[in-house]
């Protein structure tokens, strides 16, 4: 394993420290327990947005702390959800009196830790609501699984809910917008090569030179199935088809599309995937109103990509376009 790190156990602390120095105009980093808040937190009268989860998905979540998006991010160890003792103070730190929304990716660990933290923050007098992001169509959403995972859709939920909070919506309103995004967003990913968790020291799975994993998540876990390598257009279709089917996208639908790199994929390849997504959606009569192409939610240095599609309405587009100023997403300011 070769990584630009010092001690595998200090990766998250040192990285977030560097992040804090680089973005001191945007955020304040609390070292112990570790969480990152908007520099001007708490914003009085505004609903606070908190997200978090295992590290290794950068820029998620700390990169999305700032005006028009998150008020706090709670980074756990690599691929390990943070504990309530960090989530609770992050929650209270961003409560400007209007309550706090927890945006939780649907993993057992995240759900349990945020659940406990929400209970305890409420006991401390903070009004907390939670929204669960579960957009990964690679996973069957059934009684017999932990449910669909939260992946790329999280970025869109954070942006649009963050805009609603900035606009002044109350806690129920922000939660409702967030839920609407959750309901309308779906994702699917592919890995060409696995990543190596620093404390594990070896790749999360082994792929032969002509194999890829379809339906991977963002934790270096193996995917749903392994297939022989294909060209980018074919792979893109494999990712997009289950999304359009699940969303039942039809002619006239408008969307926000994200083509996301898993950390080790050149931008040039992401644009080749985006090109194909645009062709396929155009073929369905579906328009791409806004798009993101880049590394927005990663799995360390994994080679691969994911496609996220949100069926968007006027309000979502308006919220999307409102000013956002974070380390990783910025416009209008």
């Amino acid at each position, binding site marked *: 394993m070769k990584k630009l790190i010092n001690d595998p*156990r200090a990766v998250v602390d040192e990285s977030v420290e560097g992040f804090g120095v680089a973005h001191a105009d945007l955020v304040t980093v609390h070292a112990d*327990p570790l969480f990152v808040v908007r520099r001007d937190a708490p914003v009085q009268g505004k609903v606070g947005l908190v997200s978090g989860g*295992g590290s290794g998905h950068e820029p998620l979540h700390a990169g999305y702390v700032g005006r028009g998006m998150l008020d706090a991010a709670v980074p*756990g*160890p*690599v*691929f*390990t*959800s*943070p*504990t*309530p*003792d960090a989530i609770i103070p992050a929650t209270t730190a961003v409560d400007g009196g209007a309550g706090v929304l927890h945006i939780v990716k649907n*993993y*057992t*660990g995240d759900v*349990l*830790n945020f*659940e*406990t933290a929400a209970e305890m923050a409420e006991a401390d007098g903070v009004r907390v609501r939670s929204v669960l992001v579960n957009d990964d169509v*690679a*996973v*069957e959403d059934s009684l*017999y*699984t*932990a449910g669909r*995972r939260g992946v790329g859709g999280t970025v869109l939920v954070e942006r649009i809910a963050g805009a609603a909070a900035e606009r002044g919506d109350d806690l129920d309103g922000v939660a409702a917008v967030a839920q609407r995004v959750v309901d309308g967003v779906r994702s699917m990913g592919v890995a060409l090569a696995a990543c190596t*968790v620093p*404390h*594990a020291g*070896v790749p*999360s*799975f082994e792929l032969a030179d002509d194999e890829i994993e379809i339906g991977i*998540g963002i*934790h*270096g*876990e*193996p995917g*749903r*199935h392994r297939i022989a390598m294909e060209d980018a257009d074919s792979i893109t279709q494999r990712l997009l088809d289950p999304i359009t089917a699940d969303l039942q996208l039809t002619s006239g639908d408008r969307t926000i599309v994200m083509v996301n790199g898993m950390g080790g994929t050149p931008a040039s390849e992401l644009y080749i995937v985006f090109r194909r997504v645009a062709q396929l959606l155009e073929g369905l009569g579906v328009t791409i109103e806004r798009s993101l192409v880049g590394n927005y939610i990663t799995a360390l240095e994994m080679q691969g990509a994911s496609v996220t599609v949100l069926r968007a309405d006027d309000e979502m587009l308006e919220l999307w376009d409102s000013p956002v100023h974070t380390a990783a997403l910025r416009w209008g300011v």
Partner: protein
Amino acid sequence: MAGTLDTAWALRWMRETARVIAVERAALIDLDRAIGDADHGENLDRGFTAVLGKLDAADAPATPATVLKLVAMTLMSTVGGAAGPLYGTAFLRAATSLGDAGEIDAAQVATMIAAARDGIVARGKAEPGDKTMVDAWTPAADAATTAAREGSAAAAVLAAAADAARSGAEATEPLLARKGRASYLGERSIGHRDPGAVSSALILQAAADAAGDGTP
């Protein structure tokens, strides 16, 4: 073997657990890499290392429950992931079931293990056969209850629980996961042992070993 177990046993249990988890850290990571995200051993090692630190820093605990409650709070705030809240709840319920008893007998040991199991189920909503740590704790709780009812000493109850937990963990191998991260894999989860079930068996074996050691 000990007829009853005391606070010193609880402390030995936790020190033995920390030792074993450190030894098995890499193996648990490997199990989790196969069907999860390669962190289970790291998470538990971080947690039980913190437990050791907390025990060293704390005043001498009065009862076994004091020890287990401290463990619960420490795991809850240092392990993270799915295992943190689940083990945290398990140890909290275990502590609560013991009340302020200074010495605990075979029946109390069985009750304690069942309470831990119930906590995990309440928290994680997994059923036996879902390929989770529940598949270690459920046979362990059953075996402990049977052993206690049949008049075994406290240490023997723990030994029976540990044996059953190990068998339960081994028996997760052919199962298809329906809870936790492994469930995302569907059919591909078959053929691997559940890391949480394996670590649960280690923890219960440490309890038995701590009881066996501490008696003449």
